[in-house]
């Protein structure tokens, strides 16, 4: 149905009353954040009385720190990284666990014999660093391996290091780097690589699995600022609607993110939206609801992970109130009343065919 303009029409003179909100992403605009851009594009934020600015980030911007410093109102960030920040003094709260599952893979060649985390020993393991490596260390810790038993190599923005054999197992997000592999020509066959060429270890299947994209809010303001509390609920409502839109209209959602400046080719972008949807939907308890068990597992993993410099991610349990379902629950309840499905019970992913180079 194309980029519908359900909400934009209602922007009649009420523009001045909109509450300004800044949302900090954890990377450049791309399908990973389709729900937020869809909410913006479809006018869901405006419907909730919000004027939202989505701020992308680059290599050195830490979203939760931008939040803790008061630069923005909400931030998207992986839970383990934020746990580290909280121990360092950041006062932030997880208000919605958008991704229910971990999307991190460790990919190796089909004939490499690396089939589980236990096989990492003595191998060259790729990771992006920047705090994205804690799942690896946590999973290894569960297998009795510490970081000194492998050689960790920082991956750059593409998968060339893996393709050329510099690393034995590369870190890859289901929605991004794995697709990068599948849209590359195999020089031996002249065809694109297929899933059969690779062994894929999904951290979701290991005890190292950690919660990823969550929405974080300023703890202090949540406690003391009623307006912020209301805004939070409105904000979450719009976000949920945005993700629901992305689930139902992956093609349109991917076009929206491309229009927002994602530089990926169309098939890659669509793949990304589709795979992101799979990490969110279906959401048994409702999208964004934090599963206490999953959160505790993340904390446990974070406590056990020690990197090669000997630094631990966290050394003690995070304080109570590090997460709350209060606002997302309220938002979901209100949305249910409006007749919106917030569990995605009948969600079914589409099939995306990747083209060479993601085009």
């Amino acid at each position, binding site marked *: 149905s194309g980029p519908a303009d359900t909400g934009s029409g209602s922007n009649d003179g009420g523009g001045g009353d909109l509450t300004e909100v800044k949302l900090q992403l954890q990377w450049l605009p791309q399908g990973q954040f389709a729900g937020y851009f869809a909410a913006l594009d479809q006018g869901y934020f405006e419907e909730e009385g919000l004027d939202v600015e989505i701020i992308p980030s680059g290599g050195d911007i830490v979203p939760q720190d931008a939040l803790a410093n008061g630069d923005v109102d909400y931030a998207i960030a992986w839970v383990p*990284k934020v746990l580290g920040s909280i121990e360092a*003094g950041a006062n932030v709260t997880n208000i919605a666990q958008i991704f229910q599952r971990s999307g991190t893979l460790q990919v190796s060649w089909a004939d490499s014999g690396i089939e589980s985390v236990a096989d990492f020993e003595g191998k060259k393991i790729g990771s992006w*660093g920047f705090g994205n490596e804690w799942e690896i260390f946590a999973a290894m810790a569960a297998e009795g391996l510490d970081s000194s038993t492998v050689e960790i190599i*920082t991956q750059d923005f593409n998968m060339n*290091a893996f393709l050329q054999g510099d690393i034995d197992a590369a870190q890859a997000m289901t929605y991004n780097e794995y697709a990068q592999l599948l849209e590359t020509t195999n020089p031996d066959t002249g065809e694109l690589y297929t899933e059969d060429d690779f062994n894929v270890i999904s951290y979701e299947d290991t005890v190292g699995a950690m919660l990823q994209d969550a929405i974080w809010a300023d703890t202090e303001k949540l406690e003391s600022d009623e307006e912020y509390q209301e805004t939070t609920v409105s904000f979450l409502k719009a976000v949920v609607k945005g993700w629901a839109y992305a689930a139902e209209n992956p093609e349109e959602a991917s076009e929206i993110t491309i229009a927002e400046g994602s530089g990926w080719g169309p098939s890659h972008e669509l793949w990304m939206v589709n795979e992101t949807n799979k990490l969110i939907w279906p959401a048994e308890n409702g999208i964004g609801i934090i599963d206490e068990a999953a959160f505790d597992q993340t904390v446990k993993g974070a406590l056990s992970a020690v990197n090669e*410099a000997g630094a631990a991610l966290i050394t003690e349990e995070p304080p109570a109130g590090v997460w709350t379902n209060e606002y997302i629950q309220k938002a979901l309840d209100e949305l249910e009343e409006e007749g919106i499905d917030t569990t995605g019970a009948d969600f079914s992913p589409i099939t995306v065919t990747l083209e060479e180079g993601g085009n």
Partner: protein
Amino acid sequence: MALTLSGKTRSDATTETTLRIVAPVVVGVVVLGVWQFLVSVVGVSDYLLPSPAAIAEQFVEFFPSMMAATAITGLNALLGLVLGSILGILLAALAAGWRPIDHMSAPVVASLAVIPIVALAPVLNSMFGADSQFGRQAIAGLASFVPVFINTLRGFRQTLPVHRDLMKVYAASSAQIVRTVTLPTAVPFVFTGIRIASSLAVISALVAEYFGGPRGGLGGLISTSAASSAYPRAWAYVVASIVLGLVFFLVSLALERLATRGRQRA
């Protein structure tokens, strides 16, 4: 006090030497003091920019890892510096000897001087392999190459006409001319180039670590620490990288002084 010093030619040598050391130390101490004061007394947020005390504490706590990381980055920078300098000197010698090479290398050298590391790092990692330190060394080498080449070439052009005439008068062979006049004349310029290159090599090797390759260097640890909001630790690594850069600078400065010792400048 500063006023009286600037205007007059009161050349009290020992005072000058003392002030040259004391003044920067005072500036450093005052800045650190004010910063610490702002954080601990005025209550400015020390979240992103931690207090000197917090940084020092992390520096001490992670000292062994700090040393190991400094060694890795330092070695990369050193190899790059040596490699880049040798290349720079050789190519400058060619360019000085044969003008077409000079003209041909001009756009290439100019391009190398303006190319950001971000652009080069992924390409070099692909070309030379992300599992080796060579990519970083190559980047440090390229960064060092430019100033060494430019200064060496300038040095080769500094041969005084009177010295050239003298060599001709002595019917000296080309090899003799190079050995007795051209090279010795160029040496101080070469070392000036190396001095400029030294800090560049360190910063380049370090920044290159942000963009892939084996872990364990200062650049990687700065980013990892910062990514988990361990800012005092990140800044402690930054301090280590400053010290590393300073060591490179001072050593190359000493070499330059040594090379120009006992020479009057025209």
